[in-house]
């Protein structure tokens, strides 16, 4: 009974099971037919709920548009929107999110994605945080493939656009293990929201700024490392980058590469390399081929923006402010920003330039050291950009080597700079300097070259040069220098006018110079103080063995404080000063104080023809000692031309005046304008001594000469010989004087004479005065009354031993009121005149033979001859050139005309 029931029950159950299976299979078949027919299905709500639940942990709320899935496990969600709890605006919108789930995991109740593909994703900044006030997209059109596997998420590719920036990349990220104890969603969500908001704000700002980047492209490579650090390599390319602001800085074809690692060492420096085809810094430089790197140091908490530690820059070329720089490069340590240290180098005008130092970027101060060679092209730059006209006064043929330091004060104001420079082939204001160097400094106002030297051929000078911004300059030099070699430096023409008188044919003079002036004032403020020692010097062509002196010179003034000129055994020393009236264009005053033992002929030739004429006819056996003190004013003087001169001259050796020899001549002459006074003129002449004085005065057309001459104890023979010499009565053949026989027996005769007269200078017949002449000692002459018979009857010979005469100079006539020639036994008494203009003589002479004799025969002869003497009164007539004796009282043939004594015709 139970059996059948059980069997029936079994059949029923089997039938039920069978139907259940059929229903299940039928349902499954229906589902599969549905799936096969529709190709897609809506995502089951529980799955969506599970997903939303997972997102809610992060404080996100997800909204989905259409969601579908297919039997392969692929879920397609369209119009996905994520928003933070409490925000209305979505922060993430994706056009489509496709994920392929692992079916087995799904069967186990786990949602595990095998692949996630996102397309059309955009990240948005909530309106409340947006600078524009609207929910702007900060990332758009993002596509990405994500492949989660074994704790990694591989990113085979991702691409996006962020504010016009195209971003592409790939990578793999190691997902950190989920902590066992999760923080409650309520705690995580606000933090995440805040962080996103902060990030979105920053991103919005960056994107606003990045609008100045043209066609930016970012390539990212993200790789997690085993230590869970995240390595990121970013390469940014842009057609152009413009820095916002008024500077209009632009870089073209820019490429930047950065690599950094997150998490491992937050403070680890990051290096950013960059390059650009061109960088335009308006008003500063145009740079081509820029290459550089920046090392940035994240802040202590790893936050960004980081602090820049160092910057390296290089470029192919740079042209700033007209200065071309090839291959510039620099390295800067900015870790102590704003204090920056670094170095730069490059080829400036094709010459090397290097600098290093420190700077305060904010304060814009800097201390720099530099070494450079400065090409000649710098001159053209200065001419064009800085110092127009510099080409007129500065040039150089070889690069200038300079090494020094430079400082800029706060605000970028130039403080000072100095450099040790070496120059070859320098041309300074047309003066060619072979070589120069020194320490040059500039404080913004004054240029100073210290311990400088310059060589120009055989000229060598060392010292200091300074110049201010007004063009005032000063040379303080010692060395050997020909003044005319630097003549172009001193404008106005006075320099060559003065120093052109000097020549230094063999060696330049040694000098210690203080030269000041102004480059722009035409030389008016020029002045020089110099001490000079010049061997082998020519002054206006006259050679001197050595000239030394100390001079102070201005354009209108020369003051030789002391000078010494040596020529052979002679020497001149003293001082002089001369001023010049530039307005009048003529000299003003000359002060002179000179003591000279120079040969006065050549020396006075230096003073001009007037000075030479003053000593015309004077010849010196040895140079006299002359002391001259004078003050001259010239046409440039307001007082007019005046002369005051005192000359003290003394010649220890013989001098001749028109062949009249003098020994030990000395005189003191004073010239006061046209008045010349000669005092204490003394000389030894003809065995005697001459003393005289004279004065030449009066206006030029009526010059008066007054003189007073005294001859003392002259030797008559010497005087006659001298006179003969002066008269040219020396036998040209023998050289012997024709008066030799005459003077031979009269060696003991001494002559004293004096003359005093005054008259008009240049009018010899205008003189009036008087004089005396007196001959003493020895036999002046003999007269043989009986001719040859007197040799037998010696008492008939008349001998004269003294003569004296007074004369009066009366214009053209010299009046001899009494001429007495006396001897031991006779006398001649004469009187008469001489017309100096015609030379006519009219002198009457009476011979009184034996009148002075006390011996009997002679007394007798006196008695006998007295009548005869009266009859024999003779008269000297004719001319000085041709005197003629005639008897006053008888026929000329009664007695022969009295011949000259001893057969010698009377002389003038």
């Amino acid at each position, binding site marked *: 009974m139970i059996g059948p029931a059980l069997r029936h029950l079994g059949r029923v159950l089997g039938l039920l099971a069978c139907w259940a299976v059929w229903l299940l299979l039928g349902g499954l078949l229906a589902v599969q037919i549905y799936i096969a027919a529709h190709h897609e299905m809506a995502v089951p709500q529980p799955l969506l709920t599970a997903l939303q639940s997972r997102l809610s942990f992060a404080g996100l709320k997800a909204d989905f548009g259409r969601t579908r899935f297919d039997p392969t496990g692929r879920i397609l969600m369209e119009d996905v929107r994520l928003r933070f709890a409490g925000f209305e605006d979505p922060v993430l919108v994706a056009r489509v999110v496709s994920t392929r789930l692992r079916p087995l995991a799904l069967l186990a109740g786990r949602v595990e994605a095998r692949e996630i593909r996102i397309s059309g994703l955009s990240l948005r900044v909530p309106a409340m945080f947006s600078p524009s006030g609207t929910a702007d997209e900060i990332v758009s059109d993002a596509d990405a493939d994500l492949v989660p596997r074994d704790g990694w998420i591989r990113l085979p590719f991702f691409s996006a656009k962020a504010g016009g920036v195209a971003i*592409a990349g790939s990578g793999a990220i190691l997902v950190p293990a989920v902590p066992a104890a999760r923080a409650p969603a309520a705690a995580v969500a606000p933090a995440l929201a805040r962080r996103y908001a902060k990030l979105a704000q920053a991103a919005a700002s960056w994107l606003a700024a990045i609008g100045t980047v043209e066609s930016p492209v970012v390539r990212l490579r993200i790789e997690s490392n085993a230590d869970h650090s995240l390595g990121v390599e970013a390469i940014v390319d842009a057609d152009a980058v413009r820095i916002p602001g008024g500077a209009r800085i632009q870089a073209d074809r820019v490429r930047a590469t950065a690599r950094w690692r997150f998490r491992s060492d937050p403070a680890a420096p990051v290096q950013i390399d960059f390059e650009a085809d061109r960088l335009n810094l308006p008003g500063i430089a145009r740079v081509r081929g820029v290459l550089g790197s920046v090392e940035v140091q994240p802040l202590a908490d790893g936050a960004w923006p980081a602090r820049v530690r160092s910057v390296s820059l290089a470029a192919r070329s740079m042209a700033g402010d007209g200065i071309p720089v090839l291959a510039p*490069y620099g390295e800067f340590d900015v870790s102590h920003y704003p204090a920056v240290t670094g170095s730069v180098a490059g080829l400036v005008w094709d010459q090397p330039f290097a600098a290093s130092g420190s700077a305060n970027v904010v304060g814009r101060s800097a201390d720099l050291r530099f070494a450079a060679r400065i090409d000649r092209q710098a001159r053209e730059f200065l001419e064009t950009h800085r110092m127009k006209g510099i080409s007129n006064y500065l040039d150089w043929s070889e690069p200038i080597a300079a090494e020094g330091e430079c400082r800029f004060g706060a605000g970028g104001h130039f403080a000072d700079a100095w450099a040790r420079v070496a120059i070859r082939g320098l041309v300074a204001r047309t003066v060619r300097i072979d070589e120069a160097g020194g320490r040059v400094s500039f404080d913004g106002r004054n240029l100073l070259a210290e311990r400088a030297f310059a060589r120009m051929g055989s000229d060598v000078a060392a010292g200091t040069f300074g110049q201010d911004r007004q063009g005032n300059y000063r040379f303080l030099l010692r060395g050997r220098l020909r003044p005319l070699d630097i003549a172009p430096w001193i404008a106005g023409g006075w320099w060559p006018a003065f120093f052109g008188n000097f020549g230094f044919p063999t060696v330049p003079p040694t000098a210690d110079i203080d030269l000041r002036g102004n480059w722009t004032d035409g030389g008016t403020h020029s002045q020089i103080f110099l001490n000079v020692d010049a061997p082998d010097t020519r002054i206006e062509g006259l050679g001197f063995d050595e000239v030394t002196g100390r001079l102070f010179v201005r354009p209108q003034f020369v003051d030789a404080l002391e000078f010494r000129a040596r020529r052979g055994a002679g020497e001149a020393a003293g001082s002089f000063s001369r001023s010049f009236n530039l307005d009048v264009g003529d000299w003003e005053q000359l002060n002179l104080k000179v003591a000279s033992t120079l040969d006065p002929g050549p020396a006075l030739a230096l003073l001009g023809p007037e000075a030479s004429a003053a000593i015309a006819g004077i010849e010196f056996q040895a140079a006299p000692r002359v002391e001259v003190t004078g003050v001259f004013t010239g046409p440039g003087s307001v007082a007019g031309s005046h002369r005051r001169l005192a000359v003290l001259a003394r010649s220890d050796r013989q001098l001749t005046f028109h062949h009249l020899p003098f020994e030990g001549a000395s005189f003191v002459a004073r010239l006061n304008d046209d008045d010349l006074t000669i005092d204490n003129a003394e000389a030894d002449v003809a065995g005697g001594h001459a003393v005289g004085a004279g004065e030449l005065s009066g206006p030029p057309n009526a010059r008066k000469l007054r003189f007073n001459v005294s001859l003392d104890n002259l030797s008559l023979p010497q005087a006659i010989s001298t006179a003969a010499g002066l008269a040219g009565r020396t036998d040209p053949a023998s050289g012997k004087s024709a008066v030799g026989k005459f003077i031979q027996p009269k060696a003991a005769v001494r002559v004293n004479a004096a003359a005093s007269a005054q008259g008009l200078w240049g009018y010899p017949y205008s003189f009036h005065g008087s004089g005396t002449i007196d001959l003493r000692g020895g036999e002046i002459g003999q007269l043989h009354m009986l001719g040859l018979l007197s040799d037998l009857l010696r008492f008939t010979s008349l001998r004269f031993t003294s003569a004296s005469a007074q004369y009066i100079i009366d214009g053209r006539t010299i009046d001899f009121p009494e001429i007495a020639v006396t001897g031991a036994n006779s006398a001649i008494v004469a009187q008469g005149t001489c017309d100096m203009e015609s030379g006519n003589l009219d002198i009457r002479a009476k011979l009184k033979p034996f009148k002075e004799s006390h011996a009997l025969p002679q007394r007798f002869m006196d008695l006998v001859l007295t009548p005869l003497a009266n009859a024999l009164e003779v008269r000297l007539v004719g001319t000085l050139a041709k005197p003629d004796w005639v008897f006053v009282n008888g026929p000329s043939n009664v007695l022969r005309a009295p011949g000259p004594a001893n057969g010698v015709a009377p002389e003038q």
Partner: protein
Amino acid sequence: MRTKVTFVLLFLNLLLFLFIFRFERAWRTERSEQEVRHRVLGAEAADPTEISVTAPGESYQLQRRPAGWRLTQPFDWPANPAAVDRIRTDLQLLDDETSFSVRDMQASGQTLADYGLDHPAMTVTVAGTAGTTILRIGNVTKIGQRLYLLSSDGARIHVVGRGIVDSLSLPLDRLRSDAVLTIPVYEARSLNLLVPGQPRVRIQRDGNHWSFETPVPARADTSAVEIAINALDRLRVRSFELSEAGAPAANREERISLEGNNRAETLYVGDRVAGASDAEGEVRSAQRADPTSPSGRSARFTAAFPPGLWGTLGRAAVELRDRHILDLDTSAVSSIELSAPPASDVVLRRLEPGEGPPGWQLVLPPEGGRGPRTIAADAAAVRRLLDFLERLSATRFASDAPTDAEREKWGLAQPERRIALGLGRVTATLEVGRPAPDSTEVYVQAANGLSVFAVPPEILRETPVSEGDWRDRQLIALPASARLEAVSLFDLATGKAIWAWGTPIPAGAAPVPASRDSDIAALADGWRSLKALRFGPSSFSAADGPGGPWKYRLDGTFLLPAGGKGDARTTHSLLLTSRLGGTEQWAGAAEFDCAFQIEQPLIDALWTLTYGDRDPGAPNGRP
């Protein structure tokens, strides 16, 4: 029956399951995704290894190698990374504006020819780890300047913007790298130059400095070397000479090699290219060493060498050599010894910490049976000397292996000067040769070195061996508050005062007019801090000064304020010569027991005060 039904149902389910999961691919989700997506390329463009572009007249091929991307067609040369990355990114971000399937197109009676895709104007092949993708670019749309692009599988036609063609049609000179050498200066470890007819030059980095290894071991000019390397790095390819015609003979080539971190680059530079000119310099043909090329060299190209660079490389042994004679750290110098036989040596010693304030001492020879004496040295003069020596540079490298005859000729056999610098335990000694008459340079040689350098003769002026040139020049150092109360100048010949200033005024002296107050102030400044420009050779003599007889006596009284009570006065008297030259005037005083040259400001002040009345000044009417 039940079994049959069951199996039938099971079979049908299985069949359908297989159909659904095994054979059916066109799930609507995937198609929907494709329709929604706008990216033309996906992962296949993310990691390409080769990109080829074929277009009439513009074909090229790029290949990724371990060292980077290279342009392999039409010639082999490193590619411009920026250009390649731009192409890659543009491909990766290539979006269509719309797309349609080829099947739909054909269904509507259109053909590929209608879109120019049967013979595409441009074909882009992207090969990579994800496979090869071929994009065919056809005609421009009739409106909107867009392009038709056929997908790699030929199933879809995308309408894309023209930008992709612009990106792919870069000229070759943008596609290729124009860099000639790529080792940056900071990576460079050595620079090697081989110039025909000259010894090989090798310069290698030594820390922060560079040194010559050949032709002679010597210091290199770090700045000059790095400028040269940087200038080499900045060389750019101007053009390629794909013909070898006119290539210079190997023995006329200059070879330039740079070694960096585990890499080296070599450049062969030939003659100037006739008729070629470039604003940046001389145009020369060149080749890079290229191990991957059968010839070992790259294609021949031209580059512009700046004249400065080319000249430097041609004379590298001279131009890149450090011209500084001494590699001197002046702060490390502890002593200086200057010798010039037969004069006695000048010995200067830096004061050690603890010996007083930083400064220098002049060590005088023993005298009177006592040991050496020391007096304060002129720190400024020592500093100037060290500064001079630090910057002392050769005008010429005379010889690196001088013979005895040359040393004799250059005066080094019996040096004119010997400069010994104490640097801790070592001494750097420099010998200066006796200058030849009228020579514009002198020769120096380090005592332990071979090389002889020509330097300016100023080295002899800068190293005088007179004690007076080194002793402390400060003679009077009154405080700045010290005020000149009175000063009088007396003519020693007459004993009369020439002028006076302040009170009291000596009898007969002319008071200095107010117009000269600035000169009095300058005189006071110079006197308050009286410094000798140079000391005379002997001690003070009241009879004569070193340069001439004393002419003046200058008496002055300074008031030293002490806050109103106990003001002190100090009186000084100087004997003065006339101004003997532009820069020379001597003074002497018993209180210093020396005669000395006064400094220029004091000369100027005294000159104005003594000569001013005589000086007519600038010409009238000329300001």
